[in-house]
């Protein structure tokens, strides 16, 4: 699965661990890069951030304006806004553990480990459920 058969001689668990580790590393590095880029863009667009203490209060006090829906993020990305790029990076970061659980289901299935594939699938469903219950409430 994606590592070009370089680890064929390894036992299956080891290969699964490496794959899982790479999924996590990929998510982490992508989000780190995107968040860094967004931060740089923000400072580039707003030279006053380097000198003005009032700006910090505006950015971090209650009622600060920033993207917090997927629609806001997409709209902001189209305009190359720093905050929207950072938000995209944060969303990638949040999605990484969820992707980790989803990938684990596939890895256990591939190893024909039905017990653990089932356990992981239940965890995944509970995660999705708690997410939707939380958004409704």
């Amino acid at each position, binding site marked *: 699965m994606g590592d070009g058969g370089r680890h064929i001689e390894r036992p299956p668990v080891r290969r699964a661990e490496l794959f899982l580790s790479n999924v996590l590393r990929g998510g982490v590095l992508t989000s780190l890069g995107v968040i860094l880029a967004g931060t740089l863009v923000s400072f580039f667009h707003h030279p006053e951030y380097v000198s003005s203490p009032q700006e910090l209060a505006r950015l*971090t006090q209650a009622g600060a304006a*920033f993207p917090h829906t997927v629609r806001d993020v997409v709209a902001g990305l189209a305009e190359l806004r720093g905050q929207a790029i950072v938000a995209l990076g*944060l969303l990638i970061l*949040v999605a990484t*553990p969820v992707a980790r*659980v989803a990938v*684990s289901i596939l890895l256990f299935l591939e190893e024909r480990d039905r017990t653990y594939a089932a356990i992981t699938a239940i965890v995944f469903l*509970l995660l999705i459920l708690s997410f939707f219950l939380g958004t409704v409430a």
Partner: protein
Amino acid sequence: MTPLEFTLLAAVVSVAAGFLGSILGLGGGIIVIPALTLWFHIDIRYAIGASIVSVIATSSGAAASYVRERMTNLRVAMVLELATTTGALSGAYLAGRLGGRWLYVIFGVVMAYSSLMMFRKRHSEIAGTPRPAPWADRLRLHASYFDEQLGREVPYRVSSTRLGLALMYVAGIISGLLGIGSGALKVPAMDLAMGLPIKVSTATSNFMIGVTAAASAGVYFARGDIDPFVAAPVAIGVLLGAAMGSRSLGRLKNSTIRLIFIVLLIWLSVQMLLRGWRG
């Protein structure tokens, strides 16, 4: 303080939070929240939002190497996640139906007890005598890890799986109710009840906390609690700190990790009891 100064300083503080969190199996919220609110005067909502991001960053940032080095017990993590996610759901349901005050007291007492038990175990470098463990046998939870500090492979047996599940369910309820990352409860449960080596306990707890936090992070984001300007330096710093911490865990002595954890538990326990006392 200008936005530039804030970004740089918050990133530095977050490196420390990520480092400590990745070694102790916690999310780093205990450093991030007070630093942001007391030192940088950030609105508490955004501080909590940033701390959720910090939990996920610590977890994923460190897990990449813990999983590769087999420090994380993946099977234990998967089995226990059943209990933590169910607990978190129950906690969300119970929120508002249970008084927060008594929860803080119970939480504080549990932490004080855990710190005492850990203190009694402080000199042990590796796990104690094996006990019969039918559930752990059936679920193939026993494993081994390479301890860099001891310079050898350390095999270990897992026991009391059902007790572990029950404790994790409670930990899940507490994180669902109080919004605190419950790494401080997960580590003692694995170390004391289930007999996992302390390094495996912190690495496995570290692995688990990201999943629970990810479920709530979506909600926090939609509610507008995650301010990108506050969360960005926290995420960057924590990711770097966690990457450094995960490289150090193997080299630390088991007794050192336990000692840091005991101090932390006592501190947290006092905080919780005070909060419960004041109401």
